[in-house]
């Protein structure tokens, strides 16, 4: 290369370095972080589990702060009903994979960050391989099965874990460093399936996720930038209703099944089975599931039954869904009495009534919230003419 070319390269490098410093200037001038801390962030790799509400807030701040590598693990697609709280995604992203939408958004925010998409849900088979490539784990997943999966993997791989959860107006935050306890030390068992509602059933104020997800980003940045006092040893309880943060102390439980003195869990287990299959809350009608959850159930092999009249079904339906009609009872459903089913209709009203009736007959049934309209809008598999 000639002298002129070398000079051009040097200038490009200098420009890049200047823009790098300018981008992070307001945090580099924090003496507690400084250039050394910024360099540590650039060299760090964080895994964000779930590109949902918590993951959105956390990932945006982690990217903005210049964390070198951000992994995003999610198998879900963007749904219109996500957008009030999942600020990584926009209206134009509806139907897209959340990892893809997240990658675009984070790249637009900060092209210096390497975003790695882990498409699909973490499970017992892949979690250790995926997590092994990261320094810190931020858990924003939306099921107990995923929470225990991520926790156990973090313990087994000795990775720091920043975990949070939200519901309605409430949030919970826990930070663990290896050897200092884990999620199981605080909550050894998940609630029985169906007893604690999820956001799809009970609702959540979107900004509550912003509070908790941003706090997760703060804690992860403290760990990676080696500054401050990590919020370990405490369970943070945020109550948006009263605007209060309260804390209770937690500690490693020597009897913990995974991080205790005599662990019984030495590798990932079957978390879906351990947390139980979806069950309805007694007396409140059948449980409704979101499109995303229904898609997950489909992958698990749960049977879909269409409760619309035959003529409506004939015009178009979910591939594999069995036509059972509006007057179905437990007796004429496919499978045996203990086979769970997902009931679907156009808008989710008739299917909710049928699912509730089936539940009262002792059958495990859930209803697709928003119905086939929501399913088709998300661009999920469909046979025949699209529903209108």
């Amino acid at each position, binding site marked *: 290369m000639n002298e002129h070319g070398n000079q051009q390269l040097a200038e490009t490098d200098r420009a890049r370095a200047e823009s790098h410093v300018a981008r992070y200037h307001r945090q580099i001038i924090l003496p507690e972080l400084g250039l050394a801390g910024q360099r540590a962030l650039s060299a760090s790799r964080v895994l964000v589990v779930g590109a949902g509400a918590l993951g959105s807030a956390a990932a945006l701040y982690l990217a903005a702060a210049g964390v070198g590598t951000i992994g995003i693990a999610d198998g879900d697609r963007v749904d219109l009903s996500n957008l009030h709280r999942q600020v990584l995604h926009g209206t134009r992203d509806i139907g897209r994979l959340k990892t893809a939408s997240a990658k675009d958004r984070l790249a637009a925010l900060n092209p210096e960050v390497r975003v790695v998409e882990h498409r699909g849900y973490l499970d017992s088979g892949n979690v250790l391989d995926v997590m092994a490539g990261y320094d810190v784990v931020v858990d924003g*997943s939306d099921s107990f099965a995923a929470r225990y999966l991520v926790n156990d993997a973090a313990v087994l791989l000795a990775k720091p874990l920043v975990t949070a*959860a939200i519901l309605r107006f409430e949030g919970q935050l826990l930070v663990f460093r290896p050897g200092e306890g884990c999620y199981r030390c605080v*909550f050894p068992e998940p609630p029985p399936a169906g007893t*604690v509602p999820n*956001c799809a059933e009970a609702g959540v104020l979107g900004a509550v996720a912003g509070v908790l997800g941003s706090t997760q980003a703060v804690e992860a940045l403290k760990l990676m930038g080696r500054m401050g006092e990590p919020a370990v040893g405490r369970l943070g309880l945020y109550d948006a209703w009263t605007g209060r943060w309260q804390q209770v*102390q937690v*500690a490693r*439980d020597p009897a913990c099944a995974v991080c205790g003195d005599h662990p019984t869990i030495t590798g990932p287990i079957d978390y879906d089975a351990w947390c139980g299959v979806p069950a309805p809350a007694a007396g409140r009608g059948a449980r409704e599931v979101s499109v995303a959850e229904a898609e997950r159930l489909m992958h698990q092999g749960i049977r879909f039954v269409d409760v619309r009249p035959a003529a409506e079904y004939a015009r178009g339906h979910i591939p594999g869904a069995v036509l059972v009609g509006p007057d179905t009872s437990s007796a004429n459903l496919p499978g045996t009495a203990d086979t769970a089913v997902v009931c679907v209709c156009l808008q989710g009203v008739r299917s909710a009534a049928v699912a509730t009736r089936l539940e009262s007959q002792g059958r495990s049934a859930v209803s697709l919230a928003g119905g086939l309209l929501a399913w088709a809008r998300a661009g999920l598999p469909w046979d025949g003419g699209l529903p209108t």
Partner: protein
Amino acid sequence: MITVHLPRDLAAEFSCRDTLAVDGVGDLAELWAALEQRHPGLGRWLREPDGALRQHLSLFVNARRVAWADERIALRAGQEVWILRAVSGG
């Protein structure tokens, strides 16, 4: 007086406040009994048939987690008791 914090959805289920002031209890057994008396079903709901705290609940007395909710655990006036369950929304 002891202050008891309950999960809000549980409190709603029993039509009570999520923060309760309970007088005149000296240990956990007396607290469960007092809760049951004030809100029939609540004291029983919190425990397994054998009397132990339900597995998925976590108990904190004075901001410290109590791994084993022994009924004889003493409570003193001014203490706070948190009964927590995990939530999973993300």
